[in-house]
């Protein structure tokens, strides 16, 4: 073990820790990311000077290919495609850990100490699940794989069986350290497990799935660190693992659901059983409004809160929303944004889109910071959000989203809901908000509708 290399790894770890610390505020976040990338550069350069690295041609080939793909992906992706991008990157991280574990197995087999053996098995398991699970998550977000909850008979017992199979093969491998077949079985079954686990998670639960896979990619890196007995891998991986777990818990709390409930695909049944109340619902009672009328209502308002949801992302309406904000502000109206923790398809999704459209982050408020202000607000404009503003979550014990913290938009004097149609949200349940006395439906594609509304306001 070379002392100089170890010290540089320690310095790299410190850069990672400071980098994440600086991510705590929008003012210093960019510097934080830079610190963390310097840590990575240090770790890479010093590894290249390691006495075990003897040939460079494969490293150069791999490094160039990987960097090019990474750079092209990062620079080409649209901000609305960010959930897919993050999903895909998680997958590559998991895949890298999987390959390192396999490579290490072939290198040291058949003499494998028990602690290294355990680390290899865990690395194969977690790396594989992260890899295929992230690819499925990417497929769901990209629309290649169905966004619905996929169910099949004996789903949970079958997944459990696969898991036991991996553990069993793992234990057997520890007793027969050189057995290649067992390693391939562990890898293959774990890859299948990754597909099945994410396939059964619905589109609206993607924020949880993405955060969880993020955490796995870190833990996979950590287990690789245990194989190589390398502290920088363990530390960096643990930081990412912790980050992913915290985000996962925040997302679960945002939906008032346990992690188990999300992972096992909870909301699927609720949607279909609600078909009865759909028939009873007074569908015709909604009041709809056009851009011109709405502009007149807004003209006399003094405070407006905009509530964006996944619909804004789908319609790529963030720039149109900013134009609307500017038009309202030009009339002296106070405009703020209320962001629900699970709005969109990943943590912080709405914030990134609005930042892209140049909306000041100080105008964006989290649920707990703005929820008491709705009662003093003249007009709330809900754009492509649904379940996160459904008042049934507060009082209807039979509703599948009962207990979920929601934005209390119905307390405002007027609520305007922009939607394409009367279809229910992703939880598949009706929203009583639409039928409220103070509710107005403003139908249309978010981008077009906001564009029309903005020009009407300017014409006043």
């Amino acid at each position, binding site marked *: 073990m070379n002392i100089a290399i170890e010290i540089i790894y320690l310095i790299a770890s410190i850069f990672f820790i400071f980098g994440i610390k600086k991510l705590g505020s929008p003012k210093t976040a960019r510097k934080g990311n830079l610190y963390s990338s310097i840590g990575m550069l240090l770790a890479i350069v010093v590894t*290249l000077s390691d006495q075990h690295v003897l040939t460079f041609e494969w490293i150069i080939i791999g490094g160039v290919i990987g960097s090019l793909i990474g750079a092209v992906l990062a620079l080409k992706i649209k901000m609305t495609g960010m959930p897919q991008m993050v999903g895909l990157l998680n997958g590559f991280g998991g895949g890298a850990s999987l390959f390192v574990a396999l490579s290490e197995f072939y290198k040291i087999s058949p003499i494998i100490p028990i602690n290294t053996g355990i680390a290899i098995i865990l690395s194969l398991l977690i790396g594989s699940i992260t890899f295929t699970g992230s690819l499925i998550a990417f497929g769901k977000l990209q629309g290649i794989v169905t966004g619905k909850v996929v169910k099949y008979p004996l789903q949970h017992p079958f997944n459990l069986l696969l898991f036991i199979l991996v553990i069993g093969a793992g234990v057997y491998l520890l007793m027969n350290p050189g057995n290649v077949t067992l390693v391939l079985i562990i890898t293959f079954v774990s890859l299948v497990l990754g597909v099945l686990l994410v396939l059964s998670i619905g589109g609206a639960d993607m924020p949880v799935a993405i955060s969880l896979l993020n955490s796995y990619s870190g833990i996979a890196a950590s287990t690789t660190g245990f194989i190589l007995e390398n502290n920088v891998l363990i530390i960096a*991986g643990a930081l990412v693992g912790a980050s992913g777990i915290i985000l996962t818990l925040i997302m679960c709390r945002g939906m008032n659901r346990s992690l188990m409930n999300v992972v096992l695909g909870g909301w699927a049944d609720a949607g279909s059983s609600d078909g009865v109340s759909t028939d009873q619902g007074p569908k015709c009672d909604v009041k709809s409004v056009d851009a011109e009328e709405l502009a007149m209502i807004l003209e006399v308002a003094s405070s407006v809160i905009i509530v964006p949801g996944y619909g804004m992302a789908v319609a790529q309406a963030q720039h149109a929303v900013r134009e609307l904000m500017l038009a309202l502000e030009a009339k002296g109206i106070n405009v703020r944004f209320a962001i629900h923790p699970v709005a969109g398809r990943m943590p*912080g999704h709405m914030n990134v889109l609005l930042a892209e459209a140049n909306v000041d982050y100080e105008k964006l408020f989290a649920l707990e910071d703005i929820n008491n202000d709705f009662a003093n607000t003249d007009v709330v404009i809900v754009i492509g959000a649904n379940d996160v503003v459904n008042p049934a979550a507060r009082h209807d014990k039979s509703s599948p989203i009962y207990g979920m913290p929601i934005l209390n938009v119905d307390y405002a004097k007027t609520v305007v809901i922009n939607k394409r149609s009367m279809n229910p949200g992703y939880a598949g349940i009706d929203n009583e908000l639409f039928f409220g006395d103070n509710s107005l439906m403003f139908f249309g594609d978010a981008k077009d509708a906001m564009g029309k509304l903005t020009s009407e306001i300017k014409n006043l």
Partner: protein
Amino acid sequence: MYVTSFLMLIYVFVLAIFVGFELITKVPPTLHTPLMSGSNAISGITIVGALLSAGAEEFTISTILGLLAVIFAMINVVGGYLVTDRMLKMFKKKVR
């Protein structure tokens, strides 16, 4: 000897998890997406293991797997940092 060095690694892991929890609970919701992509880039630290695998002297199946690992980890590292920087550039306080 084996046991103590392995225990040291577990020490490091557990303490790093606690550091992670402390740091990340302070990140505001507005930055959750860049936090995810940025921490994702950090998980590309697997590149260290990948380089050790791909740089072995003899060319074996282990080297091929190392090459694949280098490609994947570099996508993770370069893609992660660049896309995070792209996002963070947009989080500016607007001067009016």
